[in-house]
């Protein structure tokens, strides 16, 4: 039985038995090499579910939207499961609100180039870190080299060059906020950019305001980022957002010890919500 058949069968069983109220997976898109997220409440729709190498979307964030209807079943790979763990730690959902069907990730492909997605090539955890049941067996998922290679490239540039590089990045941003909306760490009830009355960030699109948004986004998710790479994938302008996220992660690692966010529900102390009396002192 393929993973897809197993997912369909389990989704049907879970929905029929009433164990879950909604089930989240992927369905085929218009094009043969495209999928799109699918939320079903009826067991009869379970046959629409697909699982193939074009399941590029991370599903976890939908759990927040449908959790009010009852327990949510969803298919989780490494990234989805870490996103769920993230949302549980952030108290967006509770562990008992979700039923997780784990599946080993084969690595997803870009629809256009048919090559492994950048986020999948960089992924460190293909297998779910948290699930209620696992379809098939956990796969081999070697941890790729060069987690901070992109960051090192930028750091090697001279200061004016770096400045120009990021100015060109911010000049391209159209502030569609897709990076925020897809991020499992961005779960504020009201984002600061939507707080028009406070007017944290101006609505005009220019380098200064875009930088304000970009830097704030990175600082807000900094120590919680699960490195799913969705922000970079969804960006319509193809901005290198992971270069910013990973810079923070790299510094956290260097300064406060090796750390990887959201690998289990219990280890929830992120470096920026903690302190150590013996932290390095740079500001004396």
């Amino acid at each position: 039985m393929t993973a897809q058949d197993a997912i369909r069968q389990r989704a049907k069983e879970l929905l029929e038995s009433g164990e879950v109220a909604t089930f989240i997976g992927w369905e085929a898109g218009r094009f043969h090499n495209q999928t799109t997220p699918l939320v079903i409440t009826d067991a009869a729709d379970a046959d629409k579910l697909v699982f193939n190498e074009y399941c590029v979307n991370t599903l976890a964030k939908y759990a927040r939207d449908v959790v009010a209807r009852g327990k949510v079943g969803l298919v989780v790979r490494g990234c989805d499961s870490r996103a769920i763990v993230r949302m549980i730690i952030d108290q967006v959902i509770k562990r008992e609100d979700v039923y997780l069907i784990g599946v080993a990730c084969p690595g997803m492909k870009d629809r256009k180039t048919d090559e492994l997605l950048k986020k999948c090539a960089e992924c460190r955890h293909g297998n779910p870190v948290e699930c209620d049941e696992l379809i098939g067996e956990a796969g081999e998922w070697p941890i790729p080299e060069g987690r901070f290679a992109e960051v090192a490239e930028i750091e090697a540039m001279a200061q004016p060059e770096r400045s120009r590089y990021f100015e060109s990045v911010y000049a391209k941003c159209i502030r569609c906020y897709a990076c925020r909306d897809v991020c499992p760490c961005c779960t504020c009830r009201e984002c600061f950019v939507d707080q028009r009355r406070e007017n944290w960030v101006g609505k005009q699109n220019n380098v200064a305001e875009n930088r304000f948004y970009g830097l704030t986004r990175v600082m807000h998710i900094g120590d919680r980022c699960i490195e799913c790479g969705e922000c970079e994938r969804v960006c319509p302008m193809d901005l290198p957002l992971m270069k910013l996220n990973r810079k923070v992660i790299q510094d956290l690692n260097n300064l406060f010890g090796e750390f990887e966010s959201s690998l289990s529900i219990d280890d929830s102390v992120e470096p920026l919500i903690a302190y150590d009396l013996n932290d390095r002192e740079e500001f004396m």
Partner: protein
Amino acid sequence: MSVVENTQAAQIPENWEPKIIAFCCHWCTYTGADLAGLNRMNYPANVRVLRIPCSGRMNPQYVIEALNKGCDGVLVCGCHPGDCHYVTGNYYARRRMMIFKRLLEYEGLEPDRFQVRWISGAEAGKFRDTVMSVVEQVRALGPLNLTREIPQFELPPVPDDDGAFDAVPEEVTA
């Protein structure tokens, strides 16, 4: 202290004065600045002091906004570790500011333009020395070279810029 990377010394306009904003903790540096005044210590007027309740209240967004809105450098001052009025605020600030400073430098800000210092209420001299050194470092760097606003948004220059932090003039509120 890092080496000052002066990338645009040639572009420093004549009579240009750096504008620096200092976010000072109410319980230490702000009092220290007060003491510096009481003791008639001289320090450059390029620094505008802004009081915050604790260095732990220092929102990274304040720094970006200050730079976007025309400051050439930002100084954040808080209590010495162990002396926080709220016991732990500056420990959190220390971590956050270490990360944020690196991030800003990664994006091309010269390291001297954003500095954090611990200055107690008794250290009027340290406050004066810090301000003087920050002003000199930023002066050496010249005006901030980040794009602040798109050119078409630039307003005509204000002849007398000293009142940038004035309260709203009466004729506007009336």
